[in-house]
């Protein structure tokens, strides 16, 4: 369910790392653990994607996706997920379909971002084709304000793989935090390995 931006008033202030982790996982029964080993590439088995944790960062497990942060999700988050073609994009009735052109898929995502009332004053910083682990795709970079007025900078790579698409997103408050770690994110994407989608017949 989409919530209306204006309904998010009474905030509890700073979100603690642990609570954020719990919320991200959507699962309160499993103890959250943190993997800080940046030497061994991490594989998220359920989505068939492998990536390295940047030095000084931690991967939050258990999570079917690859979620990483250095100082807490509020300050910087990398999240790598995978989706089936044809699944509805939030805030729209549209889907990214197999064989869709990179330009069209990127426009679709930007339209979906623009329709999201939790992203105020969305600005497109850049939108370019990209190659991710040898796969065609694109890279979009946007800024927006949260309903509380915090400016967020977000970069997303989308790899249009044969059986599904992989999304790698990096989000951080604009300027200071974003600039400080965007290099780490670019390195994560550079080293990302995309295997077949588990459970799918190739």
């Amino acid at each position: 369910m989409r919530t209306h931006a204006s309904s998010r008033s009474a905030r509890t202030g700073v979100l603690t790392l642990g609570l954020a982790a719990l919320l991200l996982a959507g699962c309160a029964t499993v103890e959250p653990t943190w993997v800080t080993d940046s030497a061994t590439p991490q594989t998220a088995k359920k989505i068939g994607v492998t990536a390295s944790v940047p030095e000084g960062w931690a991967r939050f497990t258990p999570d079917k996706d690859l979620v990483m942060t250095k100082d807490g999700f509020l300050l910087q988050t990398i999240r790598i997920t995978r989706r089936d073609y044809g699944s509805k994009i939030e805030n729209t009735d549209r889907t990214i379909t197999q064989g869709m052109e990179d330009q069209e898929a990127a426009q679709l995502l930007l339209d979906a971002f623009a329709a999201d009332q939790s992203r105020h004053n969305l600005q497109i910083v850049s939108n370019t084709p990209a190659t991710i682990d040898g796969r065609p795709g694109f890279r979009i970079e946007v800024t927006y304000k949260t309903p509380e007025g915090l400016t967020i900078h977000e970069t997303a790579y989308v790899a249009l793989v044969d059986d599904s698409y992989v999304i790698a997103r990096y989000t951080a408050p604009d300027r200071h935090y974003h600039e400080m770690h965007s290099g780490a994110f670019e390195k994560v994407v550079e080293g990302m390995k995309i295997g077949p989608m588990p459970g799918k017949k190739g």
Partner: protein
Amino acid sequence: MRGFPAALVLLVLAPCAHGAGTAQSLVATTAEEQGLWQRVAEEQAALDRSGFVLEEPELEDYLQAVVARLATADGLAEDDFSVKLVRDPTLNAFAYPNGRLYIHTGLLARMLNEAQLASVLAHEMTHATHKHALKSQRSLKTKTGILQAISLSAPVAGDFSPLIDLLGVYGTAAAVSGYSKGLETEADEVGWQRMRKCGYDTGEAPVVFRVLMADLSEHARKEPFFFGTHPKLADREKNFARLNAADKKHTGGEKGEERFAQATRRVLLINGELEMRAGRHDAARDQLWRYRVADPSSVRVRWLIGENERVAGAQGDPAEARKLLEEALAMDETFAPAHRSLGILLYRAGELAAAAPHLRRFLDLDRTAHDRAYIEAYLEKCEPTPPPAPPAPAS
């Protein structure tokens, strides 16, 4: 909307039976209520700065005139109410306790006359005049209320939702997502009376909710907000039909069809584009064609209709898209978006030689296009660059 005559606004105001005596004002009387008003003022400020609230002065004036008419008819201070338009194709309207009303373009674009608009605005005004936010805040303080609020604010888990916007506990959420059944019924009843006092055709009140329900069912659409949920719409329709049935003296009333169409036609253009971008191509088609009929010389609407047919994929009509995009460019050769759309359409149809001039012209006209890199790549495939000329001999 250019040239909306001020006289029209006066016309909306005119035929009201004015309540005698001093107008009743909206006031926050207790500290609790003042606290609530302060919170909603913050929410409103955030929403007003969000980029989602449209600045369309003439359209706002019109909405304001309808609200003023409803207010004065019932002896309320018209200045206590204001209406803003939210750029959103989903169906919703909501009111804050301080008299600020918001209506989504998606809701307005589906209405057919002023009486229908009045039925929604009168309902919303009642939430403010009858202090529904305060009453529902009190009931939220019970344990179940809090639990409900927390479950409602569970983080949006979508792959594309903001990562840093995870925790929100509803403050005045009910304003947006609806109140209890009892309060909603009260809003229908009081709203209906206000509508009737103004001389509006109350028969249009159930009609608008039938139209919205049909729209939702036809497209099997699931929407998050109050006026976008079938049971809530069915309740409104039933309440208004019941009130009309009991109103034996009811003899028609004013619909305000033409005035509404003239004042709100720009909403069709704005919301039609939003529908297209949300992938609701049939709704976009309907609204954009309605706009085209009202404003036959618009280049933009031709582009949008064409673009909608182009991006609709299997639901679209590429031949129609091509025709309209060519028409738009025949009317205004400098309209960059139409070059882009037509260029991409031709490129994907394999007509590279025909696509190239449009893609090139687009890049010339729109120097800051964010998707420049893709268009340049297409262009390269359309007109492969000749091998570089041999360097000139050194002199």
